[in-house]
């Protein structure tokens, strides 16, 4: 079981309110990702759930029990830290066995569980090494192993992939997703990388300045961002947010259109522009188009076959079906 409910949870450091009162329901077995720019309070929120920080107000319910005052070790949660926080003077085996040893399990049971975790994580050959002798990805797996052996109600991940290189990050992303499918334990994952959030989450929680901007499945957030912040944050490359006369034409203060919902043509279209930088990814090409009608250049996705010279004149047509409209407060207009 791993059902976590936050009720009016608040966190203040002195006078500064880093988490405004917020409610959040995390159901058993869900993979929830907290995402937001740095300093938005997502790590603090995770630490509040873990019990490493005390809440300034509100309640944290774990499996229906009020866990607000329960010390971290007794909450039945396991955490994987950004720095992995492995114990450098212990072998991998001892690192993984540490929580079991603290719980006072007998040696045979400890060994059995460590071996099992090592098998799951492909660490069997490294059990007698020290963390210092392992690569980044292996250390990451040891940290996960240390979390798994406790058989926790939920796993908490604090930006676990940010210290890995890009290729390894993609691999570990898959491994963690697969682990979630296999264990079907609740996982709460903090990241500033919206790609990680989109690819892994069942439910994304977008945070900004200690306030939840939107909660929903990745595609919900992608298709129906509740406000301009979520619209600009989710999706890569980011959504084009346009203001001024063109927005007013659609009865909104801001309109948003994703790069893939703009058609590019050399002859006909609604908006005129010149080609700026183009980014070729092979399968796709992203063009940055400077339009005199808008302040910022528009990003447009086109097929990889299309090639346009720098400075070429083009015409753009937005797909009005996928146009997002936002009012003066930045909220979505249906």
């Amino acid at each position, binding site marked *: 079981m791993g059902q976590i409910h936050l009720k009016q949870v608040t966190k203040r450091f002195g006078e500064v309110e880093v988490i405004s009162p917020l409610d959040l329901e995390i159901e058993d077995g869900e993979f929830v990702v907290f995402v937001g720019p740095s300093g938005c309070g997502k790590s603090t929120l995770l630490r509040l759930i*873990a019990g490493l920080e005390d809440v300034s107000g509100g309640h944290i319910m774990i499996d229906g029990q009020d866990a607000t005052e329960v010390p*971290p*070790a007794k909450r039945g949660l396991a955490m994987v830290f950004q720095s992995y926080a492995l*114990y450098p*003077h212990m072998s991998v085996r001892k690192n993984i066995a*540490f929580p079991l040893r603290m719980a006072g399990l007998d040696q045979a049971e400890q060994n059995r569980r460590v071996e099992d975790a090592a098998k799951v994580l492909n660490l069997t050959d490294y059990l007698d090494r020290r963390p*210092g002798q392992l690569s980044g990805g292996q250390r990451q797996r040891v940290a996960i192993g240390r979390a798994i052996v406790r058989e926790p109600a939920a796993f908490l991940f604090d930006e676990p992939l940010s210290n890995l290189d890009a290729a390894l990050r993609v691999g570990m992303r898959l491994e963690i997703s697969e682990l979630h499918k296999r264990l079907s334990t609740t996982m709460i994952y903090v990241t500033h990388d919206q790609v990680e959030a989109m690819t892994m989450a069942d439910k994304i929680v977008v945070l900004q300045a200690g306030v939840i901007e939107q909660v929903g499945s990745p595609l919900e957030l992608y298709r129906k961002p509740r406000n301009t912040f979520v619209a600009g944050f989710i999706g890569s490359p980011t959504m084009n947010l346009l203001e001024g006369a063109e927005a007013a034409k659609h009865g909104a203060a801001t309109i948003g259109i994703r790069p893939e919902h703009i058609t590019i043509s050399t002859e006909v279209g609604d908006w005129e522009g010149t080609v700026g930088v183009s980014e070729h990814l092979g399968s796709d090409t992203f063009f940055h188009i400077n339009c005199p009608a808008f302040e910022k250049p528009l990003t447009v996705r086109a097929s990889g076959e299309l090639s346009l010279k720098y400075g070429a004149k083009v015409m753009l047509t937005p797909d009005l079906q996928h146009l997002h409209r936002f009012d003066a407060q930045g909220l979505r207009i249906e």
Partner: protein
Amino acid sequence: MATQHSQSAARIMMAPAVILLLGWMLVPLTMTLYFSFKKYLPLRGGDLGWVGFENYTRFVSSSSFWPAVATTLIIVGGVLVITIFLGVLLALLLDQPMWGQGVVRILVIAPFFVMPTVSGLVWKNMFMDPTNGFLAYMWRAFGAEPVQWLSQASMPSLIMIVSWQWLPFATLILLTAIQSLDSEQIEAAEMDGASWFSRFRFIILPHLSRAITVVLLIQTIFLLSIFAEIFVTTAGSFGTKTLTYLIFQRVLESQNVGLGSAGGVYAIILANIVAAFLIRIVGKNLDA
């Protein structure tokens, strides 16, 4: 090429310092060895010729030799135990966030800046004096008979004085080591269900092992040769005569340079035995 040039340039630049240091070490060492094989009594006939190993046998067969070795080891051991134990404790305390942290830390370091002679005299006259000392007042305030520290409890007193001097050093080194501990490790241990004591035993103490080794080695080097504290307090009486002090007495009080030099060579050997033991026991901590 550039590296080769800069390497040889570096060697030439460093040479004066290295030669100076080497000379500074070699000249006294050679002189000690030279005199240790001579009968040399400055006020009673001067250089009386070579005597072979006679000085060496006389120095060891003296009734004060083994007690002096024992005293030396007890002082070194006692001070090491006290400074490391209290040093870890103080470092843990000073690591806690508190008001006036900067001032407190400077106060803790202060004893290290007091010269050994001065601290010896301050302790002797202001604290341990049986009639006017602060400790005597304390004892009397509770209606007890004041302890005659330096005569009745000479060794504990001396160990106390020297520990007071060296505690700041141990605390400082251990404090910086504690501060370098990744706080996420402590948090991880907390999540893993480790109690405060387990966190100390399994995370903090192993992290400190290297710093403790450094404190142990450096303090041993300096403590084997403490002199001023003994000179100004007990002058070697009441069983506080260390090997260093015995050598001093042989050379300056008995005016026997040859005998003292032989003692000096024994002191070098003792220091090396202690160092070899220490490095064997704790040296592996410095590897990783």
